[in-house]
């Protein structure tokens, strides 16, 4: 399944930058960064449980926000990209370096 994850982390307190970095790293473990605070993660339900738990562990519910959009398996039809930084499809695009 494909989950779109977006977040806002408050910098009001000094710990904010640290939380931001940790949340980004968690997302990067399972997906790819499409914009600064936006990740696309194509994962199994089991992986999603882990990732969600890790994210909910890191964020501060008082000041930060996390949003998860479940795009399902037909996600390619629901996503349209314009402009720079067109992401690539981790599972399907040829990875030849």
């Amino acid at each position, binding site marked *: 399944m494909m989950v779109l994850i977006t977040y806002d982390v408050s910098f009001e307190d000094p710990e904010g930058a640290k939380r931001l970095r940790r949340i980004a790293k968690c997302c*990067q*473990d399972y*997906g790819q960064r499409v914009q600064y605070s936006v990740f696309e993660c194509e*994962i199994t339900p089991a992986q999603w449980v882990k990732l969600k738990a890790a994210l909910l562990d890191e964020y501060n519910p008082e000041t930060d926000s996390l949003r998860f959009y479940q795009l399902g398996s037909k996600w390619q039809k629901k996503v349209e990209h314009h402009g720079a930084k067109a992401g690539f499809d981790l*599972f*399907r695009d*040829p*990875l030849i*370096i």
Partner: protein
Amino acid sequence: MRKLQNTLYITRQGCYLHKERETLVVECERKKLIQLPVHAIANIFCFGNVLVSPYLLGFCGENQVNLAFYSEYGKFLGRLQGRQSGNVLLRRAQYRISAEAPLDIARNIIAAKIQSARRVLQRRQRNHGAHEDVTIAIRQLNASLKKLQSADHIDQVRGIEGDAAAQYFAVFRYLLTDKTRQQFDFNGRNRRPPRDPINAMLSLLYSIVGKEISGALQGVGLDPQVGFLHADRPGRDSLAQDILEEFRAWWIDRMVISMLNRGQFADKDFIYAASGAVELKDDSRKALFQALQMRKQEKIQHPYLEEEVEIGLLPHIQAQLLARHLRGDLACYPPFLMR
């Protein structure tokens, strides 16, 4: 069925692969080229001078990521054998089934081969009008398929396969347009050495794709030398030849036919040796490889997985499906057959 994961090919020289948390990082000259979650990757194929961090080696072993090393020019050198991959059991199963009960797998493969040959001929009839000889050949291939169902010995399967191949190649020349046939004719398959341009092109492509299949089999932990249809012979990758049967007509023969019919090759592209052998000139060989690379990047709907895959990944996919069957995860081996 498990999700079809991607394969990472590292062909750039001097790359360094390492693991960062759950991601795989590829660096070259200390610049990060790509960073992706490891769970997206099933195979990593390194060509030439590619460095892999020991930690990533361990991770690949632990998580059944196939990590294989090739020379810069594609010769298989070695691969990492993981902890839980059960490779010895897989190979034992392969040896056991190859020795005791090769029939089912061989029959499946040959059924797919004959059907795909028949479909190539039928396609010709649809596009260019019926030709009497081709119609007869199609009918005979149908009969071969029927005979195959009741074949109960591997030698019978081999016999039916030989017959069907002869039928198919007897009318192969009618796949060429009249205009092409004036320039290149085809009078049956010959090899070692190929004695006409079409046989030269077929032989070269069969060999290249055959090597890719060998690599793919090795990549999933199978022994490419122990086959089901092809008997053991020193130096022959029999299992790779088995799997190649599924791809010959649909992939390679059709590619050669359409290139010739489009007029992409002419008489001057070939060297006619005094011995009767025909070879491709350097430039025409490059053109052929380029066409193969282009074809490999085309996507098709895999008839069994029902997923869109690049044609170039088919050898790896079939190797994985065969491994799954030998492990007992799949009741029978689904050979590749385009609908």
